[in-house]
C-alpha cells in the first residue's frame, strides 16, 4: 500500500451509455473521463478545476465508490476503489455542493447526529462538534429546526458540516460553494484551509469551476476539460509558466463582436471575449508585442475604438484560457460556457 499517497488514478476512463427512447433505441455514448491520471499525497488540498461537464463529478463519484470506471484504476488510501469499495468507505467523506439532501423531518442537529452515528462517533463528542461546526457556518440558531423549513443555502451549509463532522481521512468536496452567496462561500473557503492546517494528515480533493477558488485554496490543481487533464501543478507554477507570454486585456468600443477581426490576425492563439453594454472586453495571450501592434491595427481597421489596454500578471483564468484554448482556431475550441 502506497500510504503516502492519499489518492492515485491511472488512465481513468468512464463512458456513459444513454438510450434515447424517442430515437428508436439509438444509443449515445458520452465519454465523461478520457484517461485521467493524477496523484495526491497525504495532507494536500488538491483541486480539480474545469467547466461544466468537464468530468469533475464523475471523478469524485468514482473515487467515492459510487461509480465504477469503464477502464483504468483508482486507489484511495491505497485501496482499489473498484475491487474493495467497502474498505475505502472507512477512509472517506463526501460533500456535493448545490444539493439539498437530508431527512426533512429531522432537525439540523438530528440529521448531523444521525450521520455521526454511522461512523460510531461517541454522542457527546458528536454533539460538541456539531455545535462547533454549526457556529462556523452561522447555523447555530437553526440547530433545532426541521430541515424542510430551511432554505437551499442553509441545507447546503448543513451538508458541508456533515462532511467535516466525522473528520474523514480523505474528503471529497464537489463544488462545495456552488450557488452560495459570496460571503458564505468565503467563510467556507476559510474554514477549509483552516481545517487542513489543523489536521495536516488529512487530504482534500476539491472540485470547482471557480478559478479564484482553486487559486486561493489549492496547493495543486488539475485543469480538466472534456474528461482530460490539460495541466496540473501548483497555481503559482502554472501561472509562472505563462510568464513568457503576455496577458493583455483590451476594452474596445464600437464593435459588438471582435472575433471575426481577431481571426484575421496571425498568432493570436488564446482569446476570450466578454460583451458589456458599452464595450467588449477582450483577454488575449500574446507571444510578443509585435502581435499586439497587428491586433490593434486590425481592430481599428474593423471600425473599433480602443478604450483601454492593460497588461497584467497572469491569473489562473489565463492559464485556463491558455490550456483549454477557447480560441476559434483551436480544434478543441468553444468548450466552456
Amino acid at each position, binding site marked *: 500500500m502506497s500510504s503516502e499517497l492519499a489518492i492515485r488514478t491511472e488512465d481513468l476512463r468512464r463512458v*456513459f451509455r444513454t438510450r434515447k427512447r424517442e430515437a428508436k433505441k439509438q444509443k449515445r455514448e458520452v465519454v465523461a473521463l478520457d484517461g485521467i491520471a493524477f496523484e495526491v499525497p497525504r495532507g494536500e488540498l488538491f483541486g480539480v478545476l474545469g467547466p461544466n461537464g468537464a468530468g469533475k463529478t464523475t471523478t469524485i*463519484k468514482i473515487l*467515492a*465508490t*459510487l*461509480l*465504477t470506471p469503464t477502464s483504468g484504476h483508482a486507489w484511495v488510501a491505497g485501496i482499489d476503489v473498484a475491487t474493495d*469499495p*467497502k*474498505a475505502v*468507505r*472507512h477512509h*472517506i*467523506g*463526501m460533500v*456535493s455542493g448545490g*444539493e*439539498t*439532501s*437530508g*431527512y*426533512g*423531518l*429531522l432537525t439540523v442537529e*438530528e440529521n448531523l447526529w*444521525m*450521520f455521526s*452515528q*454511522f*461512523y*460510531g462517533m461517541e454522542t457527546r463528542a458528536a454533539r460538541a462538534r456539531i455545535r462547533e461546526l454549526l457556529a462556523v457556518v452561522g447555523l447555530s440558531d437553526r440547530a433545532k429546526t426541521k430541515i424542510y423549513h430551511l432554505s437551499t443555502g442553509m441545507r447546503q451549509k448543513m451538508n458541508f458540516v*456533515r462532511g467535516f463532522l466525522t473528520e474523514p481521512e480523505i474528503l471529497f468536496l464537489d463544488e462545495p460553494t456552488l450557488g452560495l452567496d459570496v460571503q458564505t462561500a468565503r467563510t467556507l473557503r476559510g474554514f477549509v484551509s483552516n481545517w487542513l492546517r489543523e489536521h495536516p494528515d488529512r487530504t482534500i480533493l476539491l472540485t470547482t469551476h471557480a478559478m479564484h477558488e482553486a487559486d486561493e485554496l489549492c496547493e495543486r490543481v488539475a485543469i480538466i476539460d472534456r474528461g482530460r487533464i490539460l495541466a496540473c501543478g501548483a497555481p503559482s507554477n502554472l501561472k509562472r509558466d505563462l510568464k513568457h507570454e503576455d496577458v493583455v486585456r483590451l476594452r474596445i468600443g464600437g464593435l459588438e463582436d471582435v472575433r471575426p477581426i481577431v481571426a484575421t490576425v496571425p498568432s493570436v492563439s488564446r482569446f476570450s471575449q466578454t460583451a458589456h453594454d458599452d464595450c467588449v472586453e477582450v483577454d488575449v495571450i500574446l507571444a510578443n508585442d509585435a502581435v499586439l501592434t497587428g491586433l490593434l491595427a486590425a481592430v481599428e481597421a474593423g471600425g473599433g475604438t480602443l478604450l483601454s489596454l492593460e497588461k497584467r500578471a497572469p491569473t489562473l483564468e489565463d492559464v485556463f484560457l491558455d490550456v483549454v484554448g477557447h480560441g476559434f482556431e483551436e480544434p478543441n475550441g468553444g468548450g466552456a460556457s
Partner: protein
Amino acid sequence: MPSDRRFRETLRSFRVATWLGWQIESNWADPFVFAIYSLVKPLAGALILVFMYAAIAKGGVNSPLFPAVFVGNAMFIYVPAVLAGISWTIIDDREHYGMLKYVYTAPVSVFAYLVGRGVAKAAVATVAVVVTLLLGTLALSVPIRLAGIDWLLILGALVSGCAMLSLFGILLGGVTLVTARHNYGVGEAVAGGLYLLCGVVFPLETLPLWLEVVGRGLPITYWIEAVRRALLGAGSPAFNGLSNGALLGVVVGSTVVLAGLAVGTFRLAERRARARGLLDMQTMY
C-alpha cells in the same frame, strides 16, 4: 475486516436505521391521519373480509373456514409493510432525501440499515395486527383464547417470519436499486401477488394447480399456517400432513435459502447500480 469491527458496524447501522425509521414513521403531524392509516385501514380490511364471507360463504362469519382466513389476513398486514417498506427506503433515500449515496459512502452495513428501516414499519404494522386480532376475538367470535395459544410456536413463527420478510424486502430492495423510474410500486405489487398465492384468503386447494404449486413453494404460506395453528389450535386442511415442527422447519429452511437468494441478488444489483451510476439517480423529484 476484523469480525468484531464488522459486528459493531452492523449493530450500529441497525440501531441508527431503526431510530431513523421510527422518527419517520412516528412523525404524525396529524395524529388523526395516523389513526386512520394504522387503525382504520386494517379494520376496514377486516370488515371487507366479513362482508365477503357474509355474501359468499355458507354460514358467513360462522363458516368453519373464517377464523383461519381472518388470522391469515391479519398477519398478512406485515407483508406489504415490510416488503414495500424496505424497497421504499431505497427510493426515498435515493431520490427523496438524496441520502443513499451518503449512506453508501459511509461505513454502514446496508443490509442492517435496510432491516432497521423495516423494523419501524413492522412496529406500526404490529399495532394494526393486534387491533385486528382483538376485533376478531371480541366481535367476530374468532376463537383465540390466551390459554390455548401455543407460545413456543408463535415465538418461533414470529422470529423466523421477521427474518423471512426482511429478506424478501432486501430482495425487492435489490430490484428497486437497479430499476429506474415508475417502479416504486414493486413492493406493493409483489405483496398483492403474495396475498393471492399464500393461502391468505383463498385456501391453496381452491387455486388452479400451477398457482397452488407456486403457493406451496413460498415460505410465507407456511409462516401464516404456523401462526394459525399457534393462535387457533388448527390451520387449513391443506397442511394436515405437516407437524408443527415440520411447519417451522419449512419456514426456517426456506428462509435460509431465501437469505442466499436475497443477499446474492442485492449484491449483484449493487454492482450493477455502481456500474451504471444509479446509486444517486434522481428520477422522481
